[in-house]
Each structure stands twice: as structure tokens, then as C-alpha cells.
């Protein structure tokens, strides 16, 4: 009897907390516009999308969100976390959207909502310049390859490794920047990351790194990430619309050219990702 009324009380309290929380979170677009700032979560170790360039936060994310901010009429406030802490913090309401960007995958789409793609994410291998033992992706069989922890690049590398005659010795890093440092130091034979990222790194450090072409695995794309619930729908719709406008009037291609040296053909939406 006591247990039952206690349970009732607890359920009631839970509903009350839930009600105040959802009342608080209702219509995030209105809340963002009222506050005048869009909070964006990211990690600052994913060049050329997001990195610290001699102390200044720079990259495609920064430029693209500046344009999104203009479209929505709000300022952008950045919150930088380690990558494996970004999604828990998004769900805890620490920011409204995640810049990342993240590869659009089936598993992530079950839980999160993606914006239209902003770049291609198909992965390739970065090796040390002059390393003749790796000339095509298959050559990484049996070698030690670095990759970021909690990334889709890790999943893609694992899948690729399973198709090889001898498994790849996969080493996971908190951030890709640390795997590049280990590659330069000769502790690993290569790094598996999306082509735009490693092409940028190889260009920055010509003579140290080289990209192994072609990219392997299935074609995939990068998008920004938000929450799926009804409260976040108006905000995500507005960001989607802003991005499509930025893409349509050529600003996106201009920024891709600036950061990757090339533009990408990307679909307006990814409904059925390859992974």
C-alpha cells in the first residue's frame, strides 16, 4: 500500500519534471531567436572543418555557420568538447546543434537528425611520404593504422579490414590530430580518415604525408547533427533551409573551394546512407 502510493508519487513527480523540462525546451527556434545566439557544439581537432589555426578557431564549420547565422539573424556561440563528449552534451541540451561534422550513417540517423550534406566523407589512407609499402588501400593489411575514437571512419575501417587477407591492427585515438602526430613520428603506418581531411593535412605538410588514392569503401557524406524531437524540428528545418539556400547561391561551393581546394557534388538530403 505504502509502496504503491510512493510509486504514484514518484511517477507524478517524474511527469512534473518532464513537463517543466519540455515546457522549457518547447520550440527551440523561437528560443534561439529570442536569445539572439545559436549554440554550436564541436571539437576543434578536425581540420579543415574545425581546428585551431595559430590560436584562432577556423575552418569550414566556422565560415559555414557564420553564413547560417546571417540567414537566421543570430550570433554563433561555439562550445568545444572532445569528440566522444559531443553527443552526450547535445542530448543534455548544452547546445542546439553539432557542427562536427559527422558522417551520415544509418546508426546515427536512428537517433539524430542530419542537415543536408556539406562535403563528401568517403575514407582514404594517409601515409608517410615516400612509404613504398603502401601504394593502394589493400596494402594496409596487417599494418597498424590510426583512426579517431567514436567515429564512423573507425566503423568503415573495421568493415574494410574484415575484407582483407590479414586484419588491420587498428589503433584508436581521442582525436585525429594525435594520430597524425604518431604517423609523423613513425609509430603507425597510416591514418584512415575522410578524403577532405587527409587531403588538407597532406597539403599542409607536404613532404611529410601523402594520400593513398583511391578512397575505399562506399560513398558517404558529412552533415551537421541535431536532435530529432518535435521541439527541435523548427530549428533544424530553419538550418536545413539556410544551408540549401547557401548551397543554391554558390556560397557553399566557394567555401569548399577555399578549404578543400575542390568542390563536391552532394545531394540535398541523404535518405538511405551506405553505412
Amino acid at each position: 500500500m505504502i509502496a504503491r502510493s510512493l510509486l504514484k508519487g514518484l511517477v507524478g513527480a517524474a511527469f512534473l519534471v518532464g513537463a517543466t523540462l519540455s515546457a522549457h525546451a518547447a520550440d527551440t527556434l523561437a528560443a534561439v531567436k529570442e536569445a539572439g545566439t545559436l549554440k554550436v557544439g564541436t571539437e576543434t581537432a578536425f581540420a579543415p572543418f574545425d581546428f585551431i589555426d595559430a590560436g584562432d578557431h577556423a575552418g569550414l564549420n566556422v565560415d559555414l555557420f557564420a553564413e547560417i547565422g546571417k540567414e537566421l539573424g543570430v550570433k554563433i556561440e561555439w562550445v568545444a568538447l572532445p569528440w566522444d563528449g559531443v553527443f552526450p552534451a547535445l542530448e543534455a541540451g548544452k547546445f542546439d546543434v553539432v557542427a562536427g561534422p559527422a558522417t551520415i550513417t544509418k546508426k546515427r540517423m536512428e537517433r539524430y537528425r542530419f542537415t543536408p550534406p556539406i562535403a563528401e566523407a568517403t575514407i582514404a589512407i594517409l601515409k608517410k611520404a615516400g612509404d613504398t609499402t603502401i601504394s593502394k588501400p589493400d596494402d594496409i593489411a596487417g599494418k597498424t593504422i590510426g583512426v579517431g575514437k567514436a567515429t564512423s571512419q573507425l566503423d568503415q575501417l573495421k568493415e574494410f579490414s574484415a575484407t582483407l587477407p590479414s586484419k588491420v591492427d587498428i589503433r584508436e585515438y581521442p582525436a585525429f590530430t594525435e594520430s597524425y602526430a604518431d604517423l609523423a613520428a613513425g609509430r603507425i603506418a597510416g591514418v584512415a580518415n575522410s578524403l577532405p581531411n587527409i587531403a588538407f593535412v597532406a597539403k599542409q605538410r607536404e613532404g611529410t604525408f601523402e594520400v593513398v588514392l583511391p578512397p575505399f569503401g562506399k560513398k558517404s557524406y558529412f552533415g551537421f547533427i541535431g536532435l530529432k524531437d518535435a521541439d527541435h524540428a523548427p530549428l533544424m528545418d530553419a538550418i536545413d533551409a539556410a544551408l540549401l539556400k547557401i548551397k543554391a547561391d554558390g556560397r557553399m561551393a566557394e567555401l569548399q573551394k577555399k578549404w578543400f581546394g575542390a568542390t563536391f557534388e552532394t545531394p540535398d538530403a541523404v535518405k538511405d546512407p551506405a553505412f
Partner: protein
Amino acid sequence: MSIKLFELLLYASIYTVLISVVSILIGFAIAIFLSGMLLSRKAIFVVPAQIFISFFRGVPLLVQLLLIYNMLPAIGLNVPSIVAAIIGLSLCTAAYQAENMRGGFASVPVGLVESAEMVGLTPGQIFRRIKAPIALRLTFPALVNEAILILKASSLVSVVGVVELTRMAQDLAGSTFLPLQIFAAAGLIYLAINWLVALAGGLIERSLPGLPR
């Protein structure tokens, strides 16, 4: 390594110092209450204080920070990164400082307290003039120790999004590919700050009233 990079590290170390100093002071205030509760000999005070201390000493600071940052919003308290960092460090250091203080108060010679009672001092006077100064004198080296530990532990707060010295060093090492120089510089800055803390601690300790012989 250029001057610009060193300046950025110095700038980030302001956050390290700020967060640590604020946390140590808040932690000190909380620790006074906690040690009072521990010494009260009443279960209603002692037990909650013991639970608090066993939690904040028993759970890794990294986990505490993630809990504070990601769990508080579930009860409607969405604190910014820097506040979450200060709450985490303060509560953690409070638990350690409270145990130090309890030890300090327990080490005040009983004879001194009895003599004070004999000459007619009130309990309040005994606390202010006998117990507190002696306990402070006894625990001061441990307090300086704790301050240095917290300064170094503040490198963990980057997990909740505060860009302090260590995080800045990681970011710069990642974008400049000069890890050796940058981490060496960061290490030297930590060393310099902690040397200053130890020096100030030594000076203050010497100015405290001496122990009776």
C-alpha cells in the same frame, strides 16, 4: 615555437589559475562546514558528511565532471562549461580538505583545551584562539599540497569544454605539428605556477603563529 604560441598558452593558463583558485576557496569554505559536521559526534551530521566525502573522494574527478556537466540538465540545471568545472573541482577538493581539517582539529593537544577551560574561556573563544589557529598551523602544508594538486587536476576540465592550458596545448600541437615544443612549454608554465604557489605557501606558513613547545 613562436612568441605568439607562447602567448596563447599563457592566456589559456589564466583559465587554469582562475578555475583552480576559485575552486580551492569555495572548497575551503565547504570543508569548514564538513569538518564541523564530522567532529560534531552527532550521527545526523556525521553520516551525511561521510557520504559526501566518500563519494567525492571515491569517484574519479573526470567522471564527476562528466556527471555534473551532462546530468544536471536532467533536473533542469543547465550550467555553462566553466561553472560545471568549478562545481566539480570545488566539491572534490572540499572532500579532501575536510579530512585534512578534521585531522588538524583532532591533533590539538587536549591539555591546551583543558587549560583554556580552566582559565574560563568560553567555547567560542577556545575555538577562535586555541583550536582554529593550531589546526590551521598543522594543516597548512597539506592545504598548499591540495592547492597544487587541484591546479594540476584542472587539466581535466577540458572534457566539459573549458579551454585551459592543457587543452590549448593539445589544440596548438594538433594544428602546428610541434607537440614536443608546445607540451614542454605547457609543462614549464605549470611548473612556474606551482613553484609560485609553493613559495607563497612557505611565506604564509612562516608568518603563522608558532606551535607551543
